[in-house]
């Protein structure tokens, strides 16, 4: 055998040693060092990084909570309060985890709004959008499962209501429900499996996030102008330019989330969840978590049980086909004067649906919910596919670099 010398790529011999055996150094350098970002990317492009941080913080705090938590109907509530009282810094870890979940969704919604507004889901990034919606879907499942764990009144009744959705499926519904619960009602078997699934799903999310990020890096990130990168002048390196921007965004995020964690830790929680679960008494105002509320509003907007459930799942399913609904060649809404406002109305509408979902389904709220549902589907299924035929767009710049030249 030939005594071949290892190539010397790096000055540091340790890095060289690793690189020769596992080219992870050059991978990191390529994907997170020299990775070209469109230089006009604004702070909305920092929300991806924020989400990664959120996910890691949620997983870490979750693992530690799992060390102190007991998944048993008789002890779950008490062990949660034990974490708050007796475990050193237990209150901090729990509040990080519970408020972190809410902020995770705030950030994910902004990330999705950015993607919709600037057309990041369009060719060639459709798969990215699909993976993203898939992550969002597992996130909702994980959040729901986690919400049942403290075993307060809201936990118990949320679990009851959501699992009862499945009983609406004709013929097999009851069977599926019982199979999901492992009992005739929500009970200890349910709590145990919910805990097991809540523990494992974040790692599934982590894996899909890996694919999501890898897919972004194939064609590079989109940008506010929605035009593809043409020359090296259009981009900056991820390190240090984007990293420092992401870190600044993280600092602002850190201030906001700390304000909530330390000074209003229960602002986004339901008070009833501090009452231990009681299968005999349903709380008077049962509401879903705010981040699931828009879909809850859609569910209640339909007077038929099965119809409501079908519509609710359709509302999530329709997100998957968005890349094939929007046929406009223009990506960024900044260059679509009319569609832009309809898009913003869509976001406002989604938010109103969320608000309505947390209110009793009567009178004005029911009317609002129904209007909201009509616009939700109308925008996605009617306005989006046909808008570009009527709309005259603003002329796009030739390249990203040109935008900067004009400014000067």
């Amino acid at each position, binding site marked *: 055998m030939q005594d071949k010398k290892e190539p010397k790529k790096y000055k540091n011999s340790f890095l060289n040693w690793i690189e020769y055996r596992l080219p992870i150094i050059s991978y990191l350098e390529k994907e997170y060092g020299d990775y070209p970002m469109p230089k006009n990317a604004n702070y909305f492009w920092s929300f991806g990084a924020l989400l990664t941080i959120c996910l890691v913080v949620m997983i870490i705090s979750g693992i530690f909570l799992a060390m102190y938590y007991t998944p048993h109907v008789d002890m779950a509530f008490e062990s949660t309060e034990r974490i708050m009282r007796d475990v050193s810094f237990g209150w901090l870890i729990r509040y990080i985890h519970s408020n972190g979940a809410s902020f995770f969704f705030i950030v994910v919604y902004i990330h999705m709004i950015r993607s919709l507004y600037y057309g990041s889901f369009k060719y060639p990034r459709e798969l990215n959008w699909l993976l993203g919606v898939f992550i969002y879907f597992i996130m909702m499942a994980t959040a729901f499962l986690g919400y049942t764990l403290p075993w307060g009144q809201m936990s118990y009744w949320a679990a009851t209501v959501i699992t009862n959705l499945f009983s609406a499926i004709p013929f097999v519904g009851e069977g599926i429900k019982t199979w999901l619960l492992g009992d005739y009602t929500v009970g200890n078997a349910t709590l145990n499996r919910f805990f097991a699934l809540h523990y494992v799903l974040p790692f599934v999310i982590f894996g899909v996030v890996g694919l999501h990020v890898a897919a972004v890096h194939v064609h590079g990130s989109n940008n506010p102008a929605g035009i593809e990168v043409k020359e090296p002048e259009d981009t900056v390196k991820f390190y240090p330019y984007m990293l420092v921007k992401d870190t600044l965004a993280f600092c602002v995020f850190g201030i906001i989330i700390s304000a909530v964690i330390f*000074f209003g830790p229960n602002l986004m929680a339901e008070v009833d969840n501090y009452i231990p679960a009681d299968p005999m008494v349903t709380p008077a105002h049962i509401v879903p978590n705010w981040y699931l509320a828009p879909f809850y509003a859609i569910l209640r907007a339909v007077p038929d049980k099965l119809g409501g459930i079908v519509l609710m799942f359709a509302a999530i399913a329709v997100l998957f086909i968005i890349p094939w609904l929007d046929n406009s060649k223009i990506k960024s809404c900044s260059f679509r004067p009319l569609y832009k406002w309809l898009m913003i109305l869509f976001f406002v509408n989604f938010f109103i649906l969320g608000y309505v979902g947390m209110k009793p389904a009567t009178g004005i709220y029911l009317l609002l919910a129904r209007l909201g549902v009509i616009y939700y589907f109308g925008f996605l299924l009617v306005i989006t596919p046909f808008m570009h035929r009527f709309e005259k767009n603003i002329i796009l710049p030739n390249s990203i670099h040109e935008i900067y030249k004009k400014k000067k």
Partner: protein
Amino acid sequence: MLRKFAIIFLVITINSNLFAAESSKEKLIKQDWSFNGITGTYDKAAIQRGLKVYQEVCAGCHSMNLIYYRDLEDIGFSKEQIKVIASEYTVLDGPNDEGEMFERPARPADKFVDPYMNAQEARLSNNGSYPPDLSVINKSRKGGADYIYNLLIGYEEPPADIVLGEGMYYNKWMDGKQIAMPTPLYDGSVDYEDGTENTAIQLAKDVTVFLQWAAEPELEERKRLGVKVILFFIIFGIFVFLSKRRLWKQIH
């Protein structure tokens, strides 16, 4: 444009629960609690007085089974004092070597002793209503401490158009305006040792502070740490901002 929208979205989302809590109903009379605000702390003397009110009035019906006697160290009792306080109660322990349950005086490591053996006995003694556990009561009611305080002093003669259920009392803060608990606090219900006047309002205030402490014993530590963490993010943020500005100066 989108940026402004996002900020509004964020602010409203965070506040939406607050709006939800305050709409429709009568406004609670807000108190200026010492534990409110960024630098809020507990008034330990008030908590100790509140403990006395709890022991002499509330504890007849309401359990607090998430609180241990040892927790009283937080509110300024010494280890010896706590031993004395605990030993005034009896707990059922066992089985002993003969396989029998036996009674012994409570120790600091015991939880607050329940007034009833179980929920059934509690219901039987209270006309079918279950007196809720008070350990986290301030966290489990909308309005928190203010709600509890208002409820305690909110007993009134019922208006003519309201028919009260049997054994029910009129209280405008309760859901449905009827409550199974009779007026708990009167002027002079409890004698204070430190000379604070024992009006019903003062008793209600003190016991509310005590319940707030019971619900959130970590409050002081939390707020102190919070100031530090936010300060860190501000300082770090300034450094990052300066770094960012220098780096991006070369671009454009």
